[in-house]
């Protein structure tokens, strides 16, 4: 049996007459980057919502490390090892870079219930937060307010916060969004090395990044996975070309 870290089985979700997810079964194996691509409105966000816990599927189930997490809340899934990044940076803008990273470290330790000692004075939390910032290249900006960061730096911090969780699997919603060519290239290199730590479910519009990184690609169209396969298989799949890649492939 192939070991899977994260998997969905027949996930279905409707909004009124619209089937946003129709019987979706995908899996994420150790060491891989599995990219989800699809045109706007294909149901990528809905799928991520169900995997991460903000949306409940009408049918089907989600498993993390072989454990059924379908009924768990978002925060429970995060504690179980799901590290996600948001398409639009979700960071505490008034707080510093280090505080944002510490938040992740705190959540991972599962104990925010301390009211007296200073969060930033906690050595283990701080070490974890600083290590993550170091890795994404934000170590020099620790004391900056998040609001004063550039867009690219916020994207980096977004990844760093997920790193502090030391998750079993990453779910990344368009981590390249709004990055320039240079930033996109750097992040691509970083994610390439990250997959050895924990596999990545990557939703991304940047096709260069997807083709450079993905071990497997699933194509989502109108709420259905129409194809899953290697980069070459997907590139040459006629249905995919028709539905999505069009002339650009």
């Amino acid at each position, binding site marked *: 049996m192939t070991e899977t870290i994260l998997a969905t089985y027949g996930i279905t979700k409707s909004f009124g007459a619209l089937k946003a997810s129709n019987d979706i079964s995908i899996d994420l194996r150790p060491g891989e980057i599995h990219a989800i691509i699809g045109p706007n409105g294909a149901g990528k966000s809905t799928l991520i919502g169900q995997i*991460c*816990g*903000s949306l409940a599927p009408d049918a089907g189930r989600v498993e993390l490390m072989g454990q059924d997490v379908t009924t768990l*809340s*978002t*925060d*429970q899934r*995060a*504690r179980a090892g799901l*590290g*996600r990044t*948001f398409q639009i940076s*979700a*960071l*505490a*803008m*008034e*707080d*510093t870079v*280090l*505080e*944002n990273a*510490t*938040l*992740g470290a*705190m*959540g*991972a330790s*599962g*104990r*925010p*219930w*301390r*009211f*007296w*000692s*200073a*969060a*930033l004075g*906690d050595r283990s*939390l701080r070490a974890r937060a600083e290590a993550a910032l170091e890795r994404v290249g934000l170590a020099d900006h*620790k*004391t900056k*307010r998040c609001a004063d960061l550039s867009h690219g730096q916020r994207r980096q911090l977004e990844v760093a*916060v*997920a790193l*502090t*969780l030391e998750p079993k699997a990453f779910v990344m919603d368009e981590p390249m969004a709004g990055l320039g060519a240079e930033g996109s290239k750097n992040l691509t290199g970083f994610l390439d090395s990250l997959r050895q730590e924990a596999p990545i479910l990557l939703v991304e519009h940047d096709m260069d990044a997807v083709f450079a990184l993905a071990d497997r690609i699933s194509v989502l169209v109108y709420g259905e996975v129409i194809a899953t396969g290697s980069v070459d298989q997907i590139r040459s799949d006629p249905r995919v070309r028709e539905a999505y890649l069009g002339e650009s492939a």
Partner: protein
Amino acid sequence: MSRETLFNAALLLGLIAVPAWAVMTDEPFTITLATRAVILALAAAGLNIALGIGGLVSLGHAVFFGIGGYAMGILAHHAQSYTPLMEWPFLIEGTKFMPLIWLLAIVVSALVALVIGILSLRTTGAYFIMITLAFGQMFYYFAISWSTYGGEDGMSIYVRNDFPGLNTLAPIQFYGLCLAILVVVLVFSARLRRSPFGLALNAARQVPARVEAVGMDPMRLKLVAFVISGVITGLAGALFADLNRFVSPTMFSWQFSGEIMILVILGGVGRLFGPVAGAVTFVALEHFLGGITEFWHIFLGLILLAVVLFARGGITGLVAGKEATHD
């Protein structure tokens, strides 16, 4: 030292100096005024944890203020009339002992905050404001119809309650007691905002989705903040009742909830000494403008308008600028 720290220190020193000033100028009433400011600051410091850090716009904090007041009123009433609070299944007598009164105020405030919090935190924005307001009105009308304890007229307590080692009837000593409690709460607030809980709560106000995504439940964080907040305001209510030696349903009124919120906004939402700056300003306006015209609220309204429009950080923000980031 940042400007805000200097401002805070100046405020605190000013409060400590009030008794000396009152004695020198031979105006003992100043101490009573200052006591009122300190107790209101305490009530607002409670709200500031829910509102300032947690972003919970509670228009029902008078509930806790009133609970504190009635905890004092009921226990002292039974003590002064030598009637037991209840005889069955076990005997509970009234008391004039402040620490016991505070304990009751704290415990009941915590339980009520827990229930109100669980029910109202399901909502956000205007609905949250309305639900907390509704709870406030429930308690208000309950107090009005509670004829055992004075109904609409409230209760007078003839002698101020006791605190070991102090003559609480001496204004200076009671003032010192209230100020000491305020300082303890401010120290706790200062620690809290830098603690893991404070960091998480602060983030839960700004980006709940992020807090969830790193494995914490924003609702639970806010609920705990609401309880802590209610407890502090409840304690302030017990002291306020002791200051006036009088308890009435007014303590539960929505106008009072609004007043606590005004103190926080005036002083600077989320700023450590914001409630203190707000309460001192409020009591000063009430006293001096109130001496000139009974329509002094018009001026309070204008000042509040100015603060909301032009000085988002309230008085603290005006004097000390934006909040400094800490390493």
